[in-house]
Structure formats: structure tokens, C-alpha cells
């Protein structure tokens, strides 16, 4: 795989202050990037500078600071639009995260355009955030949730998906990259199949945008959601992309300031997109910080990031497979750099504790994807999820610590 110009991982690591930290006297090995990613200095500085020198509310001040904050806020929205290849910045709605974005669509699109007996089709590898909002909607208006199965590799079975795409299905919501398995779904094909039947599609891109370049125009999806904190940006900020014509006809999510054009006690008219869905003062610092994170990612380049992470994944897969008794859960042919595994009789939490004392941060548990755990008949897995600042040496340390686990549980 060609990385183009030389990949200097040490130089990249120097941009992330937390990677110099020690845990229990050992250098931190951070392998929980699917939960949240670390922040480069550029993002931290942007947040600090905003609060230290630029803080003001947006869209209302007639003073310098407010105008400046408004400008920065708007420019971040534009940056995000270009980052995901959306046609207009009116299609970029700020929310708290991918979870809130899915809830927004389930509530606003679902309650307005779905009715009792309609079906929403998801897959067996969804995060709870793409299951529960639809179940809430099911309880409210009587839609039905249908689940497309996955195979033993952890891949969506496209034939079964097609078969489930009956005339009763009125909405499709599918994860782009599985947080528990690493599977990259053929989302373009999913969208094509659904659109053949005029069914709108939401893609949950929480695990995708930091690792591969995404173009919503190319995917032709109707909604795309992601979280800023998994993209090296702040927590509490996320994005809902929606096609303009759909967002236009959807009712607002919450009522309040900013989302209105005029208010009387008799009648309120709503503001235009994107403000219609952004009641109240938004997370201004978060938006500007997310803009800085995108600048940072683009300065490295997503195609280079993807190529490097694929190399790391290959190396990590091989290293882990050499450990006796270790079984990787999720071996899709198209896979992101996520290594979910079980190790002999050792429970994921015991593994987590032992790794932690070696300074290695991984996730142990069901990864908010209980149905996936049940599908593979495991109570929990241990998950190492990689980012472009991870190294082969860190994977070696993981493998070494896992050998210690097998020693403890011999």
C-alpha cells in the first residue's frame, strides 16, 4: 500500500499531548478510539482561544465579538459541509452527537411520515443508538422494526437485506462501520437498493468519518450522522446531514430561540434551514473546535490515514492471532481498524483490568451492541480500536500484555 509522502507517526503523536501521559508509571497506549478519540493541540488551542478571547453568543450581537463568533461558527458549518461532500450548508444540522441525530430523525421524520404498521429496516450490527430510538417510535406510533441478519464473519447478508426490503419498509437505517466488529458495510449498495423502492436511508457514520473519506452526495444517502468527539474534536457536538427537501418538510425537533422567525402567543413561524432544527444557543465552542479537528485531519489526509490504519489492522490481526486461545470476533473482508476478541476463559473485564495496569486502555464489554454479542454467543468482548496515531510498538505491547493474561488464567 502506498502512503505517498513518508508517514511520520512520531511527528503525528507529538500533536497529541495526552499521548505523552503515563498510566501506572507506564506510557499510555490508547486503544479505545472507537469510544472517543484524543484531541490534537490544534483543537485544544482553538477551544482555549475561543473561551479566552472570542466568547460571545452568535446571531444576535451587534458587537465585534459576536460578529466574529458568528463568522467562525458559520465557517465551521461550511467546512463540515465540504468535509462530507454535502451540497449546501443548510443541510448541516448541529446536534449533540450521532445519537441525538438519529433520535431527531426518528422523532421528526418518523412521527410525521411513518404510520402504524410501516417497517423500519436496520441490521443486526447496529449500536443501541440505532435500535432504541426506533423502538421508542414503535411504542409511540406502532411502526415495526425489522433486522437484517449478518453472517459469521460479521458481514451484512445483502441477499437477506434485499429480501426484507418489502413494500412495507418505509425507512432504512444502517451503520456505516460497526463499532463492535469493525465491519464496513456496503452502504452505497444499501442506499441504491432502498432507493429503487423509494425508501429513504439514514447512515450512522459515527465510526466512519475519522477513518475513511465520506461523500454524502456520492452515497446519495438521505441522512448521515456522526459525532465530533470520535473525529478528534470536542464532546457534545455532532452533525446531522439531511437532504434539503426532506429537512424542509420535517417538523422541528425542539422549540426555542434561534429556530423561529416570529413568535406571538397565537402563532409561531419557524426559521429556515438549518436553524429550524437548532433551538437555543448551540455548542459554539464545540462547533468551532470540530472545524479545527477537520482542518487537522485534512492536513494529514484521510486517504493516507486509511492506508496507514489498514496496515496497522493487518499487523494487529496477525499479532493477536498468534496468541493461543484468542478468537477475533468480526472478520469482515471490508474492515476498519477495530479488533474485537475473546481470549480463552478470561472475561473481558479481567482482561481490561490487567491491560490497564500495563497502561493499555481498551474497551471491555458489550460495546452498546448487545444483539451483536448475542449473535456471536459471547457475553462481552475486549476491543482494541485503532487510530492513525497508534503504532506497531503499541500493538506489540498489547500482545505482550495479553500473553500475561493467559498466564494469569492458565
Amino acid at each position, binding site marked *: 500500500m502506498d502512503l505517498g509522502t513518508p508517514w511520520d507517526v512520531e511527528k503525528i503523536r507529538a500533536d497529541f499531548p495526552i499521548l505523552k501521559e503515563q498510566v501506572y508509571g507506564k506510557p499510555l497506549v490508547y486503544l479505545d478510539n472507537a469510544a472517543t478519540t484524543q484531541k490534537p493541540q490544534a483543537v485544544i488551542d482553538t477551544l482555549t482561544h475561543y473561551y479566552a478571547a472570542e466568547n460571545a453568543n452568535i446571531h444576535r450581537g451587534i458587537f465585534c465579538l459576536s460578529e466574529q463568533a458568528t463568522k467562525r461558527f458559520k465557517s465551521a458549518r461550511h467546512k463540515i459541509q465540504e468535509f462530507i461532500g454535502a451540497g449546501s450548508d443548510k443541510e448541516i444540522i448541529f446536534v449533540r452527537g450521532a445519537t441525538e441525530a438519529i433520535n431527531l430523525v426518528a422523532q421528526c421524520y418518523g412521527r410525521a411520515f411513518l404510520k402504524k404498521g410501516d417497517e423500519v429496516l436496520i441490521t443486526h450490527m447496529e449500536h443501541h443508538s440505532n435500535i432504541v430510538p426506533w423502538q421508542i417510535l414503535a411504542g409511540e406510533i406502532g411502526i415495526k422494526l425489522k433486522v437484517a441478519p449478518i453472517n459469521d464473519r460479521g458481514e451484512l447478508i445483502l441477499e437477506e437485506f434485499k429480501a426484507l426490503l418489502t413494500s412495507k419498509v418505509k425507512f432504512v437505517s444502517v451503520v456505516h462501520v460497526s463499532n463492535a466488529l469493525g465491519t464496513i458495510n456496503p452502504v452505497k449498495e444499501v442506499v441504491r437498493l432502498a432507493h429503487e423502492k423509494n425508501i429513504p436511508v439514514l447512515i450512522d457514520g459515527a465510526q466512519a468519518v475519522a477513518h475513511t473519506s465520506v461523500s454524502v452526495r456520492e452515497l446519495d444517502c438521505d441522512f448521515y450522522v456522526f459525532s465530533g468527539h470520535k473525529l478528534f474534536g470536542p464532546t457534545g457536538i455532532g452533525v446531522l446531514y439531511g437532504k434539503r427537501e426532506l429537512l424542509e418538510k420535517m417538523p422541528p425537533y425542539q422549540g426555542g430561540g434561534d429556530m423561529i422567525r416570529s413568535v406571538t402567543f397565537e402563532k409561531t413561524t419557524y426559521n429556515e434551514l438549518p436553524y429550524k432544527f437548532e433551538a437555543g444557543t448551540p455548542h459554539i465552542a464545540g462547533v468551532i473546535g470540530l472545524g479545527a479537528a477537520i482542518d487537522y485531519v485534512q492536513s494529514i489526509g484521510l486517504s493516507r490515514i486509511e492506508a496507514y490504519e489498514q496496515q496497522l489492522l493487518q499487523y494487529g490481526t496477525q499479532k493477536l492471532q498468534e496468541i493461543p486461545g484468542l478468537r477475533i470476533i468480526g472478520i469482515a473482508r471490508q474492515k476498519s481498524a477495530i479488533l474485537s476478541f475473546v481470549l480463552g476463559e478470561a*472475561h473481558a*473485564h*479481567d482482561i481490561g*483490568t490487567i491491560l490497564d*495496569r500495563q497502561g493499555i486502555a481498551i474497551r471491555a*464489554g458489550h460495546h452498546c451492541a448487545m444483539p451483536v454479542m448475542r449473535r456471536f454467543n459471547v*457475553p*462481552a468482548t475486549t476491543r482494541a480500536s485503532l487510530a492513525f496515531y497508534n503504532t506497531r510498538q503499541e500493538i506489540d505491547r498489547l500482545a505482550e500484555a495479553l500473553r500475561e493474561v493467559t498466564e*494469569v*488464567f492458565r
Partner: protein
Amino acid sequence: MNGDIRELYQQMIIDHNKNPKNFRPMPDAGRVAEGYNPLCGDHFKVYLKLEGDVIRDISFDGSGCAISKSSASMMTAALKGKTREEARALFEEVRKMLSREIGKPFDATKVGKLAILAGVCEFPSRVKCASLAWHTMLEALEPTGKQVSTE
């Protein structure tokens, strides 16, 4: 190997995890309670057979990590034949031992073999594992009708 880790995963804990005592359902149990920590997934049932005031039999089943399972196993071994009051008292001592401040001493004479779990307090995120079976046992002994969780 890291000393704290050896302290936590002593051989006796590993042995109880591998071959837990009284690890079986009890179809004729007089009392059953369920303990579940949804975030981490530890899930056990504790069964009791009381004869008057005495725990005639006690068992557990379910799944969880080595700490939760070995703690449950040792608990059943320690409580068989004890009175309610003694069980309540041991619960208190174990609770104190597990949740004490790091570095603080505890009265090892009151907990017997269970002192092997003393190292758990060095791992705050694992105290909930070690205490799950105990709280479940207490619910079986003094039912409130709730599902137990220590998260």
C-alpha cells in the same frame, strides 16, 4: 508480572473462577434473587434454602468475570450453615473490606478466607464485581422485590 495484578488475581481466586463451589441452580430453593450489572454484564442468581433461621443450602449460577464469580463462590462456601444474623454480619464486614479507602487496614479475623478479596479495593472499577453476589444474597435473605445491581 505487575504486583497489584498478582495481588488481585491470587491463585485461590483463579481456582474459584475455574471450579466454582455451589455453582448450580436449586430448583427447590425457598429464596431466589437476581443480581445484574447491565453496563458490564455480570449476571447471577443466588439460591437459598432456609431452615428456621439457618442457611441450610446456598448456591448460585449465571455468568461474570473472575472477580464476581470467585467472590460468589467463596460466599456460598462461607455462608452454608450460618444463621441469618451471621450472614448479615459477614455481609457487612465484606462490604467494609471491599469499599474501604486504599491503604486502610481492615479486620481480617472477621472475614476469614474472604480476606483474599481485600486487594479489590485497589481497583475501584472492580468493587462492583466483587460485591454483586453479596448484595444478591442479601436480597434473597431479606427480600425487597427488586433486581439487584451494584453499578
